[in-house]
Every structure is written in C-alpha cells, then in structure tokens.
C-alpha cells in the first residue's frame, strides 16, 4: 500500500528510484514490485559488467597460449592454457632470478618489516594511549610528521645512510667494515656487501615509515579499549608491565593482526625504495618485476605472461583483504590514522 503512494509522483524520479526501499522492513506483507526488481537487477548487472571487465580481460589473457598481442577483445577464455603461468614461474624476467627468489624477497620484505614494526610500535602506542606525561604532545607530533612526508622524501638520506655500511676487501687482503675501518688508500677495495644494495637495507628503509604508521594505528585502537579492565587489574595488585602483557596485549591482538596485514598490503606493493636501492637481480621483488613487464621496458613481453604475473602479484593481497575485509575497512576509517 505504501509503495503505491509515491509512484505516481513525477518529481525526483532518480532519487526515488535509488531510495525506494531504504526504509527497510515495514511489515512482512510488503513486497518489491516485479518491475522494480527487474530494473534493479538490470542496473546491478551493468555494474557487474563494469567491475568484471578488466578482471575477465586479464584472466582471459592469462589463460591464453598465444604470445602475440590480442587483436580483438576477448572477455571469456576460449582455451584454458596454463602455459603463461608456467613460463612466468620458470623464468619471470630476463634477469637471472627465479620466481621462488622473487616471491621469497617480496614475502620476506612485507612480513618481516611488518612484524618488526609492530613489535617495536606496540609499547609506544600503549604509552601514548594510556600515560599522561610531559612530552606526550611533542612526541606524538614527531611520530605523526613522517606520515605526512612522502616516502620519496626520505629516500636520499636513507640511501646515503645505508650506503655507508659496506663490507670491503682491501688491496692488502684485509676485510674491513666500512665506515668503522677503512682500507689504507681510503675509498678503495672491492665491496663484498653493501647494506644499501641488500634486502636488509631496503627493509630498514621501509621501517622508517612502517613504524610511525603502526604506532598511530595501534594507538587509535588502544584508545577505544575501555580502561576499566586495567583498573581492575591494578586494584588486584598487578603492576604496569603485568597489565600491559596480560590485559592489554590480548585485548589488542585482533588489531595487531589488522595492523600487520595493513602493513603487509602496503609493503607487498612497495616500489619506491627497492627500485631506488637494489641493483642485483637476485634481490628483486614481484612488484619490481611487474613494473618491468609494462610500459617502456616491456615491448618484448608477451601479454599473456604479463597477465599471469599481474594475477600472481594480486593474489596474496586479495586473499588477505577478503579474509579481513570488515576489520580493514573499520580500521581504516574509524582508526587513528587518516592521511
């Protein structure tokens, strides 16, 4: 009955259409009129086409055995061939690096950087969230500043800093750790290991932004945990460390996981630092490889291999997102970090 009262109106059809039933339940007797149901279905399917267009396109490409570029639009696989995936797994780039190495490098960087940042950040977040102390404001602003600075902004000093740690073999055969020891004629000798040109170095560089992010994200969450539990623990005689480890950490565990995975999603795509710092193919990451497969460098890369690589790079992030969708969305919008 209520549905018919507004249909004859001519005004604001668009709004009325989209809003027809946000009112939700008005008794079980009311049903969506069929014409409207069909109209919504048509719209929904159009949106499905919009969403699925690039996805189907890339899946179709990746399942094609043709290494030539597509001459016409194909959105459904005509054949199911895993040859492109196989080729990418066998020899992902022209460089002498195996897929397993690329995968390992990407995973190591994203998991280890995320874990270390979290480990170091959690006590700081707790201090900011629970204690009142003199320098609180100043220190919090200090942690916030790097979040506003683009990662590129830190890259030059980090490059120079990390580049100054080198293991060298001097002319006289001695091994020295530059800058603490130097070869006899200064700045000579063969470099055995350069911290800047290594995964460890890139990891350190990535921590420079991952750590402040983790502190802010966790602090935002700890602020939402009610203090009553901790107070009860105090009354029962727990000291501050016991409260932290036995009350706060277990309560914060879900958010620790979310912060870790948010970091993982970001680090998995990290491009700036590795691309600037790493020179040896054995250290390359999947994100770097994907970039190498497109644009000016990629005139010789078959598109089916590019498509297979794109899917491989997307999968871990997609899985994490799908598993943690709700927490991630609320963590991003309701959490402490915005910007």
């Amino acid at each position, binding site marked *: 009955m209520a549905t018919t009262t507004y249909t004859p109106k001519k005004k604001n059809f668009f709004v009325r259409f989209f809003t027809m039933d*946000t009112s939700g339940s008005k008794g079980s007797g009311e049903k969506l009129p069929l014409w409207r149901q069909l109209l919504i279905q048509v719209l929904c399917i159009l949106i499905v086409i919009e969403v699925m267009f*690039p996805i189907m396109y890339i899946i179709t490409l990746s399942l094609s055995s043709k290494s030539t570029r597509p001459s016409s639009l194909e959105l459904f696989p005509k054949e199911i061939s895993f040859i492109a995936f196989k080729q990418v797994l066998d020899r992902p780039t022209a460089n002498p690096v195996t897929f397993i190495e690329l995968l390992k490098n990407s995973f190591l960087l994203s998991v280890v950087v995320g874990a270390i940042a979290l480990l170091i*950040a959690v006590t700081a977040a707790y201090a900011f969230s629970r*204690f009142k102390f003199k320098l609180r404001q100043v220190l919090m602003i200090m942690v916030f500043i790097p979040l506003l600075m683009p990662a590129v902004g830190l890259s*030059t000093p980090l490059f120079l800093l990390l580049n100054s740690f080198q293991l060298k073999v001097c002319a006289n055969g001695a091994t020295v750790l530059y800058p603490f020891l130097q070869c006899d004629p200064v700045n000579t000798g063969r470099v055995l290991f350069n911290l800047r040109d290594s995964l460890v170095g890139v990891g350190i560089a990535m921590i420079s932004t991952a750590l402040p992010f983790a502190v802010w994200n966790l602090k935002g969450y700890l602020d939402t945990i009610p203090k009553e539990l901790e107070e009860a623990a105090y009354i029962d005689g727990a*000291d501050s460390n016991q409260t932290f480890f036995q009350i706060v950490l277990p309560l914060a565990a879900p958010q620790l996981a979310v912060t870790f995975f948010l970091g993982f999603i970001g680090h998995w795509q990290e491009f700036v630092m590795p691309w600037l710092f790493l020179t040896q193919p054995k250290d390359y990451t999947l994100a770097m490889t994907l970039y190498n497969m497109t644009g000016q460098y990629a005139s010789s890369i078959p598109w089916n291999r590019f498509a297979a690589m794109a899917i491989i790079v997307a999968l871990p992030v997609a899985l994490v997102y799908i598993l943690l969708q709700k927490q991630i969305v609320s963590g991003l919008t309701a959490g402490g970090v915005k910007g």
Partner: protein
Amino acid sequence: MASISLPAKHKKRLGQSFLPYLYLLPAFAVMGVVTFYPLVYQVIISFSDFSTKDLLLQLNSPDLHWIGVQNYIDIIIGGLPVQNFNFVRVLVYNFWWAITNVMLHVPAGVLIATLLNVKGIWFKKVYRAIYVLPVVIPPIVVGTVWRNIFDEQYGAMNQMLTFFGQLFGSTSTVHIRWLFEYQPPISWLLPTGALPLAYYAMMIANFWLGWPFMTLVATGALQSIPKELYEAASIDGASKSFQFWNITVPLLRPAMVPAAMYGFTLSFNLFNFVYFMTGGGPARTTEILVTFAYDLVRNLRLYGAAGAFSVIIFVVVLFIFLVTNKLTKATESYA
C-alpha cells in the same frame, strides 16, 4: 574510582614517571636513526645544490654549495633544469585530480550501496561479493592492467569501441592514443593547463578502483541506521526522497566524510597507481607531486631540489590534513 586516570594512580603508587619513556624507548631509538635523522638530513640538503657529485663525501664534499632557499624559489618559479615542469600547474592538477576523484567515487559509492540495500532484491550477496573485488586488488596491478587496456594498438578499450562501432555499421578500427595524446579534448577545463586524454583514462581506471571502497563504507553505515526512523517518517507521511535527504544522507555523513577525506588524501598521493599507469606522461601533464619528487631523485638526480620539493609536499599535505581533520571533526558532532 573509574574516574581516576591510570597514570596518575600509577605515578602515585610506584613513582615511576619514567615508565612511559621506557615504553617509548624502542620505537624512538629506531625512528631516531631511520626516520628522524633522514628527515632532518633532507631538510638540510634542501638548502644545498646536493647532486651526484656529492654522493661520496656527502656534506663534507668540497663541491657542495649552500644556496639558501634557491631550490625552493627554483621549484616555485620554474627555475629547475627540468623540461615541462611548472609547479603551479602540477599543484593545481594534483588537487583537481584528488577532488574530481572523490566527487565521483563518493556519490557513486553511496548510490550503489543504497541500491544494494533495497530489501528483497535477488542475488544481493553475490553482487556485494563481486562489487568488492576492485578494493582487494593492489593498485600497482590495477595501474599496469589499465595501462594495457588503454594501449593504442592492442588495448581492450579501443577494441571495445571498435566493436561497438561495428555494431553501428562503422568499419574502421578505433585508434585513440589514450595515454600519449597530448592534445586535450576539452581545452578550457583547467586554467593552469588543459587536461590530456590520459587524465580521463586515469579517471576511468581510478573510478573502477575507487567507488567500491565507498560502497563498502556506505553499506556498513546504512545498516547501522535504525529502521524505526524510516517507519516513523513514513507514518508521518514523509516521501521516500524526503526520507533519503533527511534521514539517510545526514546519518551517512559521519561515516562518509572521513571516508571521503581518506579517499582524498589517498588519491592526492596515489604514487603507485599514477606511476605504473602513465608515469606522469605525456610531457608531465598527469604528473602529481609525489611522482615528480620521485623523478627528481631517480632520473634527474637533483637531490637538493628533491629535498626542497619533499618539504613543500610536506607543507601541502599538512595543510590538507589540517583542513580535512577539521571538516571531519565538524561533522562528527553533527549526528
């Protein structure tokens, strides 16, 4: 009892006013080396002509000249030895890019969420699962895939246009140079420099990437609106559009404003997507601030200027943060 704050109590009982600093120590020790030292260093070299010649001896380099704020002046008035660079144009484009994105994503996200919130539509769960897909795909992948889609010769977009053209009897194939055409389609749109076709291509790609997140947020917010409000309104005889503007929109606002702000800052600094899709081209017309900063370091190797540019970006982002924070706070108290 509950009103007594923990730290005060704690201080009184154990006298451990150093405790918070102890908790902060690990993080600040690490950040001191890898975050704050580079930040300060960056600011220092922004006042010098630091470039490749100084890489070895760094600040001790005899060739290093302290040039005051010359880098900042050069960036703003265009004195950098860089082709096609105009700071004001890049800045205005960057803001335009972020604003136009959010202006498309938020309304689309809300409308689609509202559509999916209609009671009793079929396959609701299937649609929701499909619509979330763009959110879960990393932007570097989205950027590269759309780059291929907009390829002039083999790209899916031109092929699709060709297909539709053939439906209407056209026999020619479409060859639009989406990412490389320099001639802007609408020449008057932005006073500081017209928008190339690549901008529209990126808007299409980023629209695909952007609205599903807004839908996700709006869906959550819609579901938390009490149904009684609508019942009461319809009993009072309020029309559906009245309900939309006076119940749905105001109650969505506390959720959508932070999401829009988040989307704005995200788009403003969308390095991976822009860099992987166009690299700022053609002729730097789709360059945003962060991609140019990267170019200064990576290709032009003007480290001093890059330092100054990062400081400028910081100021711009800080300004955006303060404004968006204020807007967000203002709307929080609304509902």
